[in-house]
């Protein structure tokens, strides 16, 4: 990998090798600023007959080259570097989730403490966590061993004990893993990588427990003290081993690794990276979601703390049937404002599962798919909130004043009232025929409170920018700001349950938009405010309702517009839809009409 002075970088080529598609983008320095200029895509080629990821990469790059009128490949399909006029690029970078991405098994002594920290480290590195083994996971040792044997992870992260804490329980975990002789997923020719990130004093006996069948390495403890998490070293080691072992055994990756100017990152790891960078730079709290065919990833940064979850079986094609099974058809149909037959829908869902590449042709099919998406996103966000918590097991000092309010450890750090930016990506959100539908799906599923800016990733560029941020942060941030995000607008929503028939809040808007009025309980309103417009919104909530300043207290904020505009939401939180007490179909129809979801 060559070392290049960032100031000399004019042209950047980036690819993301997904399970089905390899996407390539070109970033060029235009008038002193980095801009994303062209994109191309081609089917990923990790499987037979090509069985070489670089074939898909060169195909995608060829498309970009053709569109850009720039020669990027030489006669031997090698990427030309450095750039020279209308030829070549200065750096080439890539992410990958092909072949199912990075799959890991994690283990820790206490499920809610060290095991949770290990899981956070693995997820943050971009892995799918297949299972979490802990001393208190309610399974008997032989059941845990059986489970380890059944799984074929790419690597294992073993944690446990604070530094100087328990040795016995950590060794006990090692004694479960060692005899199980876990087999790596790809081929039986390489040794299973196991990362030890637990009590430093247990390292020697842990080392003695394993034989030469595994590739054991040690990094700093993920939980050196109960009130302190140290995920960085474990994440770095995961990335290192991902490249050394997993990627190197996937078809064609040895070649791809030699092509890139920065280490290949797992796609979700790269997305998390850019979201963290943005949240840190702007001092905001942000949530990002990527809903795919098989999985839904949720990323969040609250008060500088990054979390990622992957809901492995919540998705819109391969996993659509599982969404229906988990959410129930009743919960899906509560978002549907037209008549549909359940038996027919069940068959349609299964037909989508077995032929995942089909697209909705009729409006009815689209409405149903977007209803399924709301439930998939809602369930994924619930899982995220349950996972992104403060550290459990931390002793807290109470004062008399805290007597009634003191939280125990393990509270979710995801706070919708503090959420500033909600970013959507993934087919059903990115390719919705109207951006209003994207905004509505986000609001219904995530239920943001107070003032929240809504945006979507224009062409799922975040993975490319995540890895670019490692080598050229300025370029990554410039492209993120100018070309990656499409702002949908701002949602202003009150928390609490407004009383039916009563005013939920009064609003007054000044700036590029002038308006004032009252929002009654259950109402939704869309006001026109374009992307380059700003407005100051004053909200006066009714007693007991909160818009960010406290119950019943007025608040004023400047908001940005977008492709959709400014959405005022007086439906209350938690959103009650369907069932005996929730909004009925007539009300849902009113919401659909208020946001102009399915009309011009």
């Amino acid at each position, binding site marked *: 990998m060559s070392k290049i002075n960032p100031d000399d970088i004019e042209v950047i080529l980036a690819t993301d090798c997904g*399970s*089905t598609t390899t996407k390539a983008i070109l970033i060029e320095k235009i008038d002193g600023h980095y801009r994303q200029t062209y994109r191309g895509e081609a089917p990923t080629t*990790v*499987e037979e007959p090509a069985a070489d990821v670089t074939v898909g990469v060169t195909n995608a790059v060829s498309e970009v080259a053709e569109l850009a009128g720039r020669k990027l490949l030489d006669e031997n399909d090698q990427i030309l570097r450095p750039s020279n006029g209308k030829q070549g690029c200065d750096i080439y970078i890539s992410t990958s989730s*092909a*072949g*199912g991405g990075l799959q890991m098994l994690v283990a820790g002594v206490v499920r809610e403490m060290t095991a949770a920290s290990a899981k956070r480290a693995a997820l943050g590195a971009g892995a799918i966590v297949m299972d979490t083994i802990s001393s208190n996971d309610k399974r008997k*040792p*032989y059941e845990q*061993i*059986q489970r380890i044997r059944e799984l074929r992870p790419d690597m294992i992260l073993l944690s446990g004990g604070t530094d100087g804490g328990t*040795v*016995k329980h950590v*060794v*006990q975990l090692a*004694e*479960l893993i*060692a*005899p*199980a*002789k876990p*087999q790596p997923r790809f081929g*039986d020719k390489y040794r299973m990588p196991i990362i030890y990130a637990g009590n430093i004093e247990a390292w020697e*006996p842990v080392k003695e*427990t394993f034989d030469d069948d595994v590739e054991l390495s040690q990094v700093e403890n993920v939980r050196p003290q109960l009130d302190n998490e140290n995920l960085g070293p474990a994440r770095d080691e995961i990335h290192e081993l991902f490249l050394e072992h997993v990627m190197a055994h996937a078809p064609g990756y040895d070649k791809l690794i030699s092509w890139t100017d920065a280490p290949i990152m797992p796609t979700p790891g790269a997305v998390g990276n850019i979201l963290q960078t943005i949240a840190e730079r702007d001092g905001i709290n942000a949530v990002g979601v990527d809903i795919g065919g*098989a999985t839904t990833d949720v990323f969040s940064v609250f008060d500088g703390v990054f979390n990622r979850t992957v809901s492995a*079986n919540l998705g819109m094609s*391969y*996993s659509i*049937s*599982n969404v*229906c*099974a*988990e959410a129930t058809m009743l919960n899906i149909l509560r978002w549907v404002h037209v008549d549909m037959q359940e*038996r*027919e829908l*069940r*068959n*349609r*869902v*299964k*037909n*989508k*599962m*077995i*032929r*995942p*590449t*089909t*697209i*909705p*042709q*009729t*409006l009815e*099919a*689209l409405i149903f798919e977007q209803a399924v998406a709301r439930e998939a996103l809602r369930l994924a966000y619930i899982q995220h909130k349950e996972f992104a918590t403060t550290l459990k097991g931390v002793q807290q000092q109470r004062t008399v004043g805290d007597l009634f309010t003191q939280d125990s450890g393990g509270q979710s750090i995801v706070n919708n009232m503090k959420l500033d930016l909600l970013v959507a990506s993934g087919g059903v959100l990115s*390719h919705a*025929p*109207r951006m209003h539908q994207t905004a509505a799906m986000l609001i219904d599923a995530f239920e943001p409170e107070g003032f929240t800016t809504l945006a979507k990733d224009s062409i799922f560029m975040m993975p490319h920018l995540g890895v670019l941020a490692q080598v050229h942060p300025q370029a990554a941030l410039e492209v993120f700001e100018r070309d990656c995000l499409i702002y949908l607008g701002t949602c202003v929503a009150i928390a609490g349950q407004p009383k039916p028939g009563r005013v939920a809040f009064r609003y007054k808007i000044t700036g590029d938009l002038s308006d004032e009025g009252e929002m009654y309980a259950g109402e939704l309103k869309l006001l026109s405010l374009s992307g380059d417009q700003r407005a100051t919104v004053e909200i006066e909530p009714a007693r007991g309702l909160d818009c960010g300043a406290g119950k019943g207290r007025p608040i004023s904020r400047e908001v940005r517009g977008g492709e959709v505009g400014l959405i005022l939401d007086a439906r209350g939180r938690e959103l009650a839809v369907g069932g005996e007490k929730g909004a009925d179909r007539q009300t849902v129809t009113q919401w659909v009409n208020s946001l102009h979801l*399915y009309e011009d």
Partner: protein
Amino acid sequence: MAHAYTPGLKVSRQTKLHCRRLLPISGKVLVEVGDLVEAQDVVAEASIPGDIFPLNLASLLGVSAADLPGCMLKNRGERVEVGDELARSKGIFGFFKKSYFSRSAGVLESVSKITGQIILRGEPIPVQVRAYVPGRILEVKPEQGVVVESNVTFIQGIFGIGGEQYGKIHLACENPEQPLTEDLIKPEMRGGVIIGGARMTHQAVEKAIAVGASAVVSGGIDDQDLKNILGYDLGVAITGTEKIGTTLIITEGFGDIGMARRTFELFQSRVGSQASVNGATQIRAGVMRPEIVIPTADDSASDVFDDGAVEGFLEPGSSVRIIRDPYFGMIGQVASLPAEPTVLGSGSKARVLEVKLDDGRKLVVPRANVEIIAG
């Protein structure tokens, strides 16, 4: 662009099948290149390390973990039978000794002086791989398995439940549009592969299980029926390990849908033949579809998949089946492939094609919503 690529299912009257039969872990291959094998012959086998019985012996004996090695009456690597005295505590001044007699058989694998835990490993578990289809061993992959070459009629389904099965082909329906109902399942179909026409009903499947059929193949199934048969709502399309008493394969999709005529006629022409079927389906990266393989005597087979749904390019005149509502299951020919994207009823913009149905009607559908079938 006058054509577009679309994936399809393989259906062939006559093809040379190269069937990879691999062990899950390294083992021993039992045949050689050129050997002739029958479908149920074992071609490779391996032993996976036996089950593990962990036991906290220190606490059972009431001794500290560090003292446990001194109490052991068996050494590491030594064989232990049920009832063997495994360890005995030293007691106090030689009294109050406590013994532990093994409740499991196996080999003593480890004794931990840190946790006080021992590990007994049970008998190795044999794993066998059968040839699955009769034929000739084309290739031996040392320690992994073999490739069997066989001339067969080959039909891929779209979705299945259950694993590998073998049996004679029995035709239960008279035409591909006839639903497979309970009354069409006969006791003489025991051990056979029952071929239906359109939707297989829940009751028909129950009856097939009751008569002991190896497998049931038909055009479609209702999702509610599938839920009733499985006892749960199937979430993810990774199947093959279900144990419902038979293997189920649908060739077209969910709902009331008839089997493609060519597929049905192919089955019709092979009634009475021995078949190998596998319901295992995986719709993820590395897609796996269920299949029915019927060996043929003819040696002149080519590699060309010449019937039913096929992989290829869409072009005017291609025969296609629509695979999404509102026209799910309809069959026709591509009339035209407009280059420009079209706005659909859903409001989305997509590349479309015009399909001419047999009754002369013309429909516009997204290209993503058709699959090519043989003309």
